[in-house]
């Protein structure tokens, strides 16, 4: 209960990247997105499911995503999130810089091992 709100912000960069990545494969609704992220990250990312939604709203605002009415797997009305062109470009940019960062971190770790 007593989690600090800043908790979410720390991970927002990573969370956003994972949302963009997941939605590149196919448009999804909220719960499907959570399940997908949990699956691909192999439960590594232990987050509150709800924290997905503020991130989605932010990305909607920045026109990285768009959302439309749709039907869930269980046949209930829901909203489907889809990547925009801008979102695709953003994902590429972010992936590159993320990879570069990871490469850097890996190198540092490798040096440390030696």
């Amino acid at each position: 209960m007593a989690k600090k709100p800043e908790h979410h912000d720390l991970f927002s960069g990573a969370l956003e990247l994972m949302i963009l990545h997941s939605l590149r494969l196919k448009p999804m609704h909220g719960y499907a997105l959570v399940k997908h992220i949990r699956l691909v990250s192999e439960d590594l990312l232990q987050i509150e499911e709800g924290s997905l939604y503020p991130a989605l709203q932010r990305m909607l605002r920045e026109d990285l995503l768009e959302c439309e009415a749709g039907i869930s797997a269980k046949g209930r009305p829901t909203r489907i999130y889809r990547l925009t062109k801008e979102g695709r470009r953003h994902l590429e940019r972010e992936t590159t810089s993320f990879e570069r960062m990871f490469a850097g971190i890996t190198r540092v770790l490798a040096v440390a091992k030696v």
Partner: protein
Amino acid sequence: MLSIGRIFARRRRYDDLSISIQEHLDEKIDELMEDGLSREAAELRARREFGNVALIQEHSREVWQWPTFESIWADVRFALRQLRKSPGMAVLAVLTLALGVGANTAMFTVIENVLLRPLPYASSSRMIFIGPPNEKTSFGSTSWLDNRDIRAQSKLLQEVAGYSADISVMETQDSTQSVVAPRVTTNLFSMVGARPLLGRTFSEVEGQAGGPAAVLLSEDLWRQSFHSDPAIVGRTVKVGGGTRTIIGVMPDSFRFPESVGPEVRTGVWLPLQPSKEMLHNRGYYFFNTVAELRPGVTIAQSQQELDAIATRIRQTDSEHTVAFRATSYQEALTGPVRPVLYSLFGALALVLLIACANVSNLLIARSLSRQQEFAVRAALGAGRVRLVRQVLCEGLTLSLFGCGAGILLAEAILVAARKLPEGTLPRADFISIHWTVVLVLAGIAILSTVLSSLLPALLAARAHPQAALQAATRGVGAHSVKGRLSGWLVAGEVALSTLLLVGTGLLFHTLWNLEKSQLGFDATHLTTFTVMPADAAGFSNIAISADSKTAPVSVATTTYQPVLDRIRHVPGVASAAMITTPPLSSTGIQSSFEILGQPTSSSGQGALISAISDEYARTMGTPVSRGRMIDDGDSLSAPFVAVVNEALAKKYIPGKSPLGKQINLGGKETGMIKPYTIVGVLADQVEGEVGGEVLPLILLPQQQIPSTSLFYPALLKTVVSFVVKTRGDIPVAAEMRSVFHQAAPGFALDDFQTMQEAVEKGTFNQRLGLYLVGSFAGLAVALVFVGLYGVLSQLVGYRRHEIGVRIALGATRRSVAQLILRQGSVLIGSGLVVGLLLAFGMGRWVKGFLYQVQPLDGLTYAAVAIALVTIGLIASVLPARKAASIEPMQALRED
């Protein structure tokens, strides 16, 4: 970024979000149930894993908002709704703050304008007044010779100027009017940096003995009496019987010397041309000295130099005790009102404190009753920051309303202040609200409001919602802490209002004494007015006429006596008399004197000197205690006589009969060659002010003032007063003017007032002070009453359950009522004790305003204690009755 389109699209965004989240939860619950969980367990787990739904929704929505502004706006709207829900408390809080802020703003504005704002002179901060030390008045006089020596010897003073506050009569086409006519040294204008509206200021040659006769007009006089004639410079006008050339007009902002009073607005300035008397007599004190310090020189340094100059003067002139004291000019000017204003401001500050304490209590009480609401909201996922911010917002909204109303109130008070009689406050017509003042006071009010609303919010936010929810109705936990805080606040209020009440009581006692004090005359149906001859000498031109053989006929014989005879025949007039200085007039002629055959005391003996006509005692209704009064027969050819007052007889002729003693008023030095034999003693009359000290007084027959003596121009040729006793309330001004118009054209008549008015004016300051402090105290008591009632009611509210238990266990209703009353008494008692102790300590501050009342006036203290205890008990009775009427079954079932 926030575009209009987005605001409209927002509603849809919010809907999308809710649908998404709802479906998320539903789908998860379905899946969990498929895994074999019961519906309840599935719902619980789904929610737990999702997180705080409300909070997440709020965070998500915030993405679409202009974050801080919009949520604050929402808070403000919520605050307004909350206030509307409890209008009583909102109105009470706003009014309380408005009173506190408004009254203080007005008072501080007056102080700022009167005391702190620099005078409109080029170097007003370096301007000093040089007068004799140990004088009661701030504007003690020096002599021309003193001024000359200071100017010649000082190195620390950049400029030394002087003036004599004089009056004169000006004749225009339309009328003859008396005007304030200060005579100033020619360097004064450049010293204060004053520029004329038209023409020029005085040249050096106009300030020399026998120099050209020039006059400067004030702007108002130029507009009123000369119809704003743009070609006025160079024209001539008759002032004091002589023709003078108008050389310029001074703007309205130039009011030097301020000590003369508001009449300087419509006055004239004459160049000071030293008379023979001034050039030769160091004891000729009709002169004031002002000077400008060189930059960087302090008043203390200048004082040292002045002491040295005085010592040098004393070495050459042993006859006069010369000593100087330098004061800042601004201080000399504002000195008399300074303590009054500061005391009033102190009283008001107490009111503001009490007001803030009360508002705090209101807010604390309110947030206590809302603790449950806060707990519920925290449990539903409201962020702590958000809760605190919202409470803060409520406090702010409340205090902004309060301050707004307060500023309106302040403006209203200042409008009233400008309507005070002229001269009550220096520079009153320049007073306007200063925004820094408003900001400072609003700051205090807002801070106290916000702090008091914040405290409970912080406590509420920190508390675990569960505990708060469970404890809320039981009267335990944080309540007692805050209840005690409210209690202490109320006790503090009681202490502060004790101070105010003591102040009011002392002032009331003073005014009572003043009303009862002996005037020494019967003020009913008595009217006075001043009369000035067209060729009024003015105090600065007093001189002995050297040629005693061609002595002119006295104005007493030519005018005053015949006019009096005519006045006495006016229908409705019972009697009339002339006196140069009537009771309660601000000016007067003082002189040293000797009693023949009796050694003069080493410190010298002085008395007020007044010339009077016959029937004076009868007109004033003052008893003659011994001998006879001056009458018609005391003419210039008859033996010279005098009447003294009891104060003089007691002080200078103790234990002996004053009748038959002879008074010498200077002999050749003053032209009063013949001594005056005392033929009567008059009962004491009030002199300068009601309740003031009665000084020794010598009354001389107007006919027996030799027209060649120094006393003739000073007493009879400058300004005299007539007193007229009428049969009933009859206005006499028109009749008197017509009498003078026929018998003595060219004489200026002014200042018609009844003696009753003069007496009221004399006690105006005390009355104003009493009304103000009294109303502050009334306000404070009302606030205390509300505060005490509120706190005790609250207390009864908290302890409802406990009291229910007590009654159920057999406590009598009487003992329950006593319980509450006891609580009230503790608060009142402790506040009262502290307040009385404070009042003891601050007694000496008010001493200056009291008349025949000790600062530790037992009567006042007792009255205040009784009043406060009574008020406190009344405020406690209602809550006590409420407590006693609690039905135990009801109280216990409520939980």
